[in-house]
């Protein structure tokens, strides 16, 4: 089986992690795959990838490029399956196509009411166009994959006709890397409650809430500090980030926060060096960091959203979205109860091992590719990888 993967959008955040790990997984399994990636990622994974500068194009030029130049490449490479891994796919693809939809906010009414407005009218127009293009891509795809049942429900509320070809395939994490180390961490070992929030910045990530919660904790006498893997400049320069920026800037100047992006390789140790993982994001399709934190065996406190409940189950404490006081309350509860902490930690690791193995996600994906390829072969009576 030959797979061609469109990962041209893998420039930052979860999609980059996903693409990198997928490349490695396919390579380990000996599956022939070519992955179209941005130039930066091509440098890190030169084997099995082709550098595509179209990832830097604006949306209109990119759309045109993909539907014409990329189509030509797909025809030439003639894979058994084309995997369009970032929301947009080929219309009338010449080969069977699987589309991964991974941008849930556009379909999420909670996001549209609570996060979208502050980004303004221009972004709203772009969002509408993106949503229409994603839905058009979905209608043209042979199969659609989404990272969670929550995302599937949100998508199908807009396009119920996609139900028969839409599959929820939970992501996973690298459990052997994201694991506890041998020595159990001493809670508040230096007297400070150390919170961790791993994410790049988008307005729905809501890091200002963590800043506010730290302020409330310190004000109430519980010494606290948070590490947030975001750059203040990114927050300031993002449309819709004004409130987060003010809250984070205030807390940072007060010494309540450590900011700054971290390398992917440094994350496991970062998780292990903190007491609790907090995740105030209000709109996710999966939420990789939640799975990573569970796999490391951290107690986690997350915003009460449908996807958080789906991913974390009873392995997390939940707080009302956007409520810094409720987040503070959960943290105080956790701080006061060592038995609760031990229970959460055990459940978290157990859940991660049972449900979020990266290898399981890849296996399910490959199974879907194989099914699609077999179906296509039966339909055409030829093997698509024959010489063209």
């Amino acid at each position, binding site marked *: 089986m030959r797979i061609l993967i469109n990962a041209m959008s893998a420039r930052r955040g979860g999609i980059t992690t996903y693409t990198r790990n997928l490349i490695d997984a396919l390579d380990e399994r000996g599956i022939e795959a070519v992955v179209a990636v941005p130039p930066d990622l091509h440098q890190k994974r030169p084997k099995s990838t082709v550098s595509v500068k179209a990832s830097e194009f604006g949306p209109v030029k990119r759309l045109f490029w993909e539907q014409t130049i990329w189509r030509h490449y797909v025809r030439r490479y003639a894979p058994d399956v084309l995997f369009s891994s970032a929301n947009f796919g080929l219309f009338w693809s010449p080969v069977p196509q699987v589309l991964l939809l991974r941008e849930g906010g556009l*379909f*999420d*009414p909670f996001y*549209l*009411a*609570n996060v*979208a*407005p*502050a980004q*303004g*009218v221009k972004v*709203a127009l772009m969002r*509408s166009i993106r949503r229409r293009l994603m839905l058009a891509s979905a209608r043209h795809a042979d199969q659609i994959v989404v990272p969670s049942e929550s995302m599937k*429900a*949100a998508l199908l*509320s*807009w396009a119920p006709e996609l139900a028969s070809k839409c599959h929820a395939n939970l992501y996973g994490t690298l459990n052997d890397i994201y694991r506890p180390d041998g020595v159990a961490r001493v809670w508040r070992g230096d007297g400070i409650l150390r919170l961790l929030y791993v994410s790049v910045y988008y307005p729905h990530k809501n890091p200002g809430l963590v800043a*506010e919660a730290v302020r409330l904790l310190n004000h109430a006498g519980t010494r606290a500090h948070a590490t947030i893997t975001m750059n203040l400049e990114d927050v300031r320069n993002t449309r819709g980030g*004004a*409130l987060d920026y*003010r809250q984070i800037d205030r807390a940072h100047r007060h010494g309540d926060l450590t900011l700054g992006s971290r390398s992917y390789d440094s994350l496991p140790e970062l998780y292990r060096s903190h007491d609790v993982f907090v995740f105030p994001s209000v709109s996710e399709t999966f939420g990789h960091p939640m799975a990573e934190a569970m796999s490391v065996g951290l107690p986690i406190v997350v915003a009460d959203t449908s996807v958080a409940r789906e991913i974390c189950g009873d392995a997390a404490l939940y707080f009302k979205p*956007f*409520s*810094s*006081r409720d987040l503070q309350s959960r943290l105080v509860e956790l701080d006061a109860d060592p038995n609760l902490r031990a229970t959460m930690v055990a459940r978290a690791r157990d859940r991660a091992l049972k449900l979020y193995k990266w290898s399981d996600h890849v296996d399910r994906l490959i199974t879907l590719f194989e099914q699609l390829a077999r179906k296509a072969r039966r339909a055409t009576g030829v093997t698509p990888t024959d010489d063209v």
Partner: protein
Amino acid sequence: MPENDTHPAPGVLTPEAPETSNLMSKRKIRVLINGLHARSGGGVTYLLNMLPALAEHSDFEFHIFLHSEQHDIVGDIDDRIRVHLFDFRPGISYLLFWEQICLPILARLMAADVTFSPANYGPLFAPGSIVLLRNALSVAGRETRPLKRLYWLALSLMTLLSLFFSRHAIAVSRFALSALTFGFEGLLRNRLSVVYHGVSPVYSPADTRPDDSPFLLAVADIYIQKNLHTLLEAMPAILGAFPGIKLIIAGRKIDNGYYNELMERAQRLKLQTSVDFIDSVPQSQLVELYRRCALFVFPSTVETFGNPLVEAMACGAPIACSNTAVMPEIVGNCAEFFDPSDASDMAKAVLRLLDDRGYRKELGQRGVSRAAQFSWKESARALTAIFRRAAPQPR
């Protein structure tokens, strides 16, 4: 006392545009509060008191639009209210454009059921528009600066348009209802209501009130319609009978020109040691001033509600106030009245109270009872009833 009253809103709103998702069919009533005009004083006070009271109503979901410049002024809002902070270009003309064009678009995209604008006017085409008539427009008559006159003219025009384009208009008093409906009260009566402000519970009487307090208290920002110049004119007569008494004026210097005029007048009347302008003070200090003053003087000529009156009543302060505008409606029989244009009448009213300890005590006690009827909780209840009727049906 007149109660908050509501009138049913006519018609049923049309469904929202297809941009919104079907998943929203069972959700709370979504109210968008247009807080863009809350820059100082009464506007900020209104939001900070009303928002927590509204947030108690769990069948609603409240959102507020603010400009990032307002964040420091308004401060930390109750976290049950979803705050949306915008960074558009500052300035009054761009604000008007943004409010009329961008705000309605965003309100529809977020599927707001009601858009509440608490500063007289709002976006004419926003969904379920409700306006709060709060700012007196007769102030314009006293304005001489051309740009300011233009500002008041534009405000008046927008208020008039909002009356006709909005689903409902709420006035903060019967006086405001009459003054701010441009003679169309009869025509619009089915879309008009009165909902009074409340008073914060921090304003409460002390266990005992001093019998011989050495000061009169006036609480007013420094601008001309507060009529502090007439109060200064009344002071010589008051000092003639009570030479040791002082006048403390607590309020921000909004109009520097008027402030300088007051300074000159105080100097001319030889009041330099008898009058103290202490600027704006923290709330806790203001409460103590209300509790300890001999009496509270309110000579304002243009008010739609008069927050300091209710604060003073709640703290048990005896009151001497103008007999015009909204004052009689708010204080009822809990004050000694005077003609605000007559310094001599003002002095007589103050002296009547200073001469009669028993009368002062009686007025103070009546004020405490009356103030208890002004409640942010009740105001929020009345407001949400209007929102509920303005929202798309059924719920």
